């Protein structure tokens, strides 16, 4: 039980180039984009990114040339198309991809969360996912039935970043009762060695303690918690604000070329000092129109 509120820059200071970074969020929900902006400003490179169904967070890191390897179940922009910067980098051979299906990525995070060196799976039998990745997908035999299975290794990250809803200053993160639960953020958090959580709002400890069953990431798992309102923009934080469709459309269109991606980064990342400046650049009035609370 320690006070864990930090500024974004301070919280991310220990992250270094060449490390493995796990990212929470799913499709257009709760991608930790504010943290990703800061990582890009820091000039971090050569990251191995462990994702789930990643969109903007991964693609922004790819735009900045920060990624050398991606492992996850999806990389795209959901209903806005393919991930332009990820795609270009992979097609140019600049990023190595190790694909996993959803249940096997879950198995990998579960292995990390439970301290196991592998978990078995039957999902990849015959698939090129397994055929082309002997490094991480190996055949084993069930000692009870003799069945053939694959083993997959833990998704072990040096750092893990999640964008959550609200937390107290000790890092206990809660979800609202009505939310979109289509993610594995709790599992990713539980697999973390060093976990940084950005949240929409820091709330009083009293509020957290009254409903402990709504805490999905306990402060005990958290190294630092950062207040970052609109920290998922341009994607949504369900129950707080919607995805910014206009911004996402412009992003995908602009990032069709490397030059377009660079001007996006200049405008929204390199040219700004902080997440507060980012929100100001997007426009508080504009952002407030995305809000859905109290609906």
């Amino acid at each position, binding site marked *: 039980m320690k006070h864990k509120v930090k500024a974004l820059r301070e919280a991310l200071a220990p992250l270094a180039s060449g490390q493995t970074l796990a990212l929470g969020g799913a499709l257009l929900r709760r991608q930790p984009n504010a943290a990703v902006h800061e990582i890009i400003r820091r000039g971090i490179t050569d990251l191995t990114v462990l994702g789930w169904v990643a969109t903007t967070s991964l693609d922004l890191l790819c735009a900045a040339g920060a990624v050398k390897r991606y492992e996850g179940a999806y990389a*795209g922009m959901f*209903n*806005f198309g393919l991930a332009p910067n990820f795609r270009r980098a*992979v097609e140019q051979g600049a990023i190595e991809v190790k*694909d996993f299906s959803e249940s096997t990525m879950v198995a990998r995070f579960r292995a990390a969360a439970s301290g196991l060196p592998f978990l078995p799976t039957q999902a990849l039998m*015959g*698939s*090129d996912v397994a055929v082309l990745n002997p490094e991480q997908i190996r055949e084993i035999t069930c000692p009870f039935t003799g069945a*053939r299975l694959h083993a997959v290794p833990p998704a072990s990250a040096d750092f893990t970043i999640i964008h959550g809803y609200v937390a107290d200053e000790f890092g206990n993160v809660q979800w609202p009762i009505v939310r979109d639960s289509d993610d594995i953020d709790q599992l990713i958090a539980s697999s973390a060695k060093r976990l940084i959580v950005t949240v929409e709002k820091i709330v009083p400890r009293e509020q957290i303690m009254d409903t402990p069953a709504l805490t999905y990431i306990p402060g005990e798992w958290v190294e630092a918690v950062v207040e970052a309102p609109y920290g998922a923009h341009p994607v949504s934080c369900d129950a707080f604000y919607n995805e910014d469709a206009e911004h996402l459309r412009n992003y995908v269109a602009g990032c069709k070329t490397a030059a377009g991606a660079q001007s996006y980064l200049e405008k929204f990342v390199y040219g700004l000092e902080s997440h507060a400046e980012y929100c100001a650049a997007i426009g508080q009035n504009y952002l407030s129109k995305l809000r859905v609370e109290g609906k």
Partner: protein
Amino acid sequence: MAHLDSSFSTDELAVCAVASKIKDGDLSFVGVGSTGRAFTLAVGIPLAATRLAQLTHAPGASVYWGNLLEPDLSTAPKDICQDTLTRWRAAASLADTGIKCDMLTRRAFDVCFDSAAQIDQFGNLNITALGDYRKPNVRLVGCLAQTEHFAFVPFPIVMIDLDKRVFVKEVDFATSVGHMRKGRTRAEMNLSAGGPQVVVTDKAIFDFDPASHRMRLRSLHPGVTLDDVLSKMSFEPVITENVGVTPIPTEEQLHLIRSVIDPHQVLLRKA
């Protein structure tokens, strides 16, 4: 809207074809879809078809859509933005997607829906990469749960528009394993029963020939010729004597689709 036209769209035909495959009590896996046409194929038609089945022959059919288990399909959606999904009423929205993955791998689903960038004659699907996997011509999205669909769901329904670049002899990368891959059968790859059962396209419907494991033409949509179909495929499907015509929607089905299920044309978007 109240005045029904006896003509129908290809998507409406597909809705009825898919609905006829859904049995009472079936639980179907529906993804959250993607952009444009892919959304209609992967989400719109499956949801409309399930609702049509519920309203006709299968009142106990249900879907797991995104992480909504048994979403209330009786209210027609007006849009599909995040908040609409967040507040969609449902029987359950379990704590994380891992629980849904467990349901997949323990074979708790009856039906699933899949679309892809490539499908080959044996029903292998590719949503991962076109060309050389390590340095692809087109990098696609990855796997999602489509690998699990073909490994663990007894009745996967594939929804793809016919196209020579899509219906290929052999997929560049087998994200999901069909009935044969590189000369090996499912059993030889330690896969049990499953794999794609039906392929619903904009021109025809296919299934798979148990003997050869190859895609087999079952019916042509009304007004479509065999040549139309073959000209849009890079392999020749098995063609038997009993190729039929895909049944056309009834007036009642069209009424339900247009006036009850999707009055705002969110599920079946106008072309």
